């Protein structure tokens, strides 16, 4: 293949990655923005989504398309319930204190991961895509499912944006993000908003997990990479800024795709992690974020 089509393929792959990454990172960003806590277990919610998708499609083995649609609805709901329980049992008790929350979510990471290992096993298992068709370009054919993944992710992003901008819940979330005490004084049920946001973040990760599982296979250790990439995206985009997160997901996703195709994926990751560390040290509000007042 010539350089041109090769680059086109890299860009295409990068765009699909970027969309999925945007959905995952948006969940993390929402939790950080509203609750001011870092959720280290975020990647495990993604993994849980993928594993549940495998389970549900196996239950409905005769009808891959229906099974997949069911998984796309049910898996995030189950994960959301898990997150709500974790919030109620653990995070609420430590009062969302930032450093304790990190340690607690590390604990949750191990518990979820190891329980999946116990009940699901150490194998990577594939999930059938709900449909097969190929989009043919002049130089190569491309999986139509991947394009659908990008489309579905775009719809999810749009949905989150609408919910944040147009609904009462979104208003409450934005109020809590701006000033938690003031929001409470105006009658916003802050505790309930925290629980909702934590569950919503987990559900976004799970939905991303369901969407990628036909491309990637479900495995109990698959949560680490999206976690680190989401960290990178959220930081580069500016902590707590949703628009920045989406922009950064595209910058990181596409450049990661291009560097991975032309150089080595490991090198791409080394560059990205060091870049993020430097951003945090020299521009803590992120490349696209508004500098925040010291509190």
């Amino acid at each position, binding site marked *: 293949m010539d350089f041109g089509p090769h680059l086109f393929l890299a860009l295409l792959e990068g765009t699909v990655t970027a969309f999925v990454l945007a959905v995952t990172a948006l969940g993390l960003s929402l939790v950080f923005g509203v609750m001011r806590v*870092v959720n280290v277990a975020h990647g495990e919610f993604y993994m849980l989504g993928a594993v549940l998708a495998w389970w549900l499609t196996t239950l409905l083995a005769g009808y891959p398309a229906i099974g997949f649609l069911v998984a796309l609805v049910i898996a995030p709901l189950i994960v959301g319930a898990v997150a709500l329980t974790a919030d109620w049992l*653990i995070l609420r*008790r*430590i009062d969302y204190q*930032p*450093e*304790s929350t*990190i*340690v*607690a979510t*590390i*604990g*949750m*990471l*191990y*518990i*979820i*991961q*190891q*329980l999946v*290992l*116990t009940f699901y096993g*150490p194998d990577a298992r594939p999930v059938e895509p709900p449909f097969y068709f190929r989009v043919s370009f002049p130089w190569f054919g491309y999986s139509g499912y991947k394009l659908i993944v990008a489309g579905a992710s775009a719809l999810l992003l749009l949905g989150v944006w609408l919910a944040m901008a147009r609904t009462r819940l979104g208003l409450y979330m934005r109020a809590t993000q701006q000033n938690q005490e003031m929001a409470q004084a105006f009658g916003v049920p802050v505790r309930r908003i925290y629980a909702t946001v934590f569950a919503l973040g987990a559900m976004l990760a799970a939905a991303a997990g369901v969407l990628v599982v036909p491309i990637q296979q479900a495995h109990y250790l698959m949560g*680490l990479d999206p976690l*680190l990439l989401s*960290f*990178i995206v959220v*930081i580069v985009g500016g902590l707590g800024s949703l628009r920045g997160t989406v922009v950064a997901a595209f910058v990181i996703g596409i450049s990661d795709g291009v560097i991975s195709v032309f150089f*080595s994926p*490991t*090198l791409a*990751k*080394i560059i990205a*992690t*060091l870049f*993020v*560390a*430097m951003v*945090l*040290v*020299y521009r*803590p509000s992120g490349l696209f974020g508004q500098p925040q007042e010291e509190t």
Partner: protein
Amino acid sequence: MSGGGKGGRIAALHLAVIAVLFAAQFLLPAYHHGNVARIMVLTSFAVGYNVLLGYTGLLSLGHAMFFAAGLYGAGLPLYYFEIGALQAFGLGLLASLALALCFGLVALRASGIAFLIVTLMFAQAFFLATLYFNEITLGDQGFVLSEQARTVTLGGVSFSFADPVVKYNAALLLFACCMLGCLALVRSPIGRVLVAIRENEPRTRMLGYNTYVYKLIALVVSGVMAGAAGAGYALLFAYVGSTFATIQYSIYALLWTLLGGVGTVLGPFVGTGLMFYLIDIAGDFTTSYLLVVGVVLLVLILWYPKGLLGSLRARWLPWLP
């Protein structure tokens, strides 16, 4: 500092711990003999971690990087060049010292959660680098040091670290140095300033201390102790591989310190020993033995945030350092 009686009691307690560990080598069966040697080396890692978390209040998720710097700093020259084991240990210390200094100069500009994520990112980049240069480091497969490379000749007598007796006593020496070093540090004026930073950094700065320099000192001491543990691990247990640079080992250091008691000198030893045997026992029953790690972390953070020795100190032993 309140009187010689307290100081004497503290010195007696720590020397007694070392004496008990020295005596234990004659009593322990072979399996536990090897385990305790390993625990003492890993404890040195946790002691280093505790200097930063327990006494300076800086939470790091990247300490595996310093451990691995010591591990590779000692292991690589031993593997590729003909140098003595002690020189290799020195190189391991130097590698971790240099890394801690460079890292600290950059990372300490960030604070709080940002500092934590910077440590995580640097450590991840370090881990990926050990994979990227796998022609030299042999990646996650790692390499094994020969017995001949791990022999030291002192005054005409040669000691091989493959010999269990030498291994145990070398581990004890490393542990004793780190623990007593930590004790001396936290009871020195520098240690007092570090605790002041932990309690209230703006106030300490207002009192005229350059907190950046003190935090850098704590980070370098902490990194060098972790590096010493890494270099010691390479020499005593002969294996060098990139698994030691993974996030998991950073989390282990955090877990050991939390379990034993953040900000207690003996806490890391208690935490490391207990966790080592917990994982060892759980491993007999299930492949998902890391579940123990998650459960212990949650139990600690929910009910015993001070850890074992920290709770003990709060209840009965207020003099425990």
